[in-house]
């Protein structure tokens, strides 16, 4: 099981802040492909990956990164702190 978190407009498009998933995805890209195939609301959130960032276990990462040993994946738009 893996925890998947969504923030900002990603959360709004998908309609929930987090969920637990059973997945065999080896990489973040694989997980994204699984999600996009599920329902249109996921496609609406993941349609343009250049507009998204990903964190693995609360560290910024890349879409081609491995999910091996990862417990928490978070998807969000580019950050706007400060």
């Amino acid at each position, binding site marked *: 099981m893996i925890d998947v*978190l969504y*923030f*900002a*407009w990603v959360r709004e498009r998908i309609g929930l802040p987090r969920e637990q998933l059973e997945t065999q995805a080896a990489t973040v890209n694989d997980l994204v492909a699984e999600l996009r195939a599920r329902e249109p609301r996921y496609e609406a959130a993941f349609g343009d990956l250049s507009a998204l960032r990903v*964190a693995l276990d*609360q*560290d*910024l990462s890349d879409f081609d990164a491995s999910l091996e040993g990862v417990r928490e994946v*978070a998807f*969000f*738009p*580019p*950050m*706007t*702190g*400060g």
Partner: protein
Amino acid sequence: MKVAVQSAPFDLGAELAGFGVGRSDVGAVVSFTGVVRDDSGAMEALELEHYPGMTQRAIAQIVDQAVTRWDLADVIVIHRHGRLGIGEQIMMVATAARHRAAAFESAEFLMDYLKSRAPFWKKEHGRDGTSWVAAKDADEDALKRW
């Protein structure tokens, strides 16, 4: 070093009153405060969402980088989240160093990184609805100078 992520307001004066004071190795203190502004004239509030768990750690990592790079005696980063009104303080950074160049430069470095690498997302609430603030290419480009 102090890193705080909170919804409550902070007292800028109180934070700075004791900062870098009473030390023989501090010759310069620089502080920056971010404030909610209204460019459109139709904004009612700014909402800051963040990633609890990651936020504190991401900011601490940015502070660590600054401390490695400049000889800093002390650093404060306070960043608020939640719904903030026009004119309210969003966040502050303060640096204390032996010389002003290190204090100014490290404060700018901290601001540039907090802008693009601290997991906050701003949403504007206005009379005409809401909209997420988009990250600017210029903000990402600003990291390259470091």
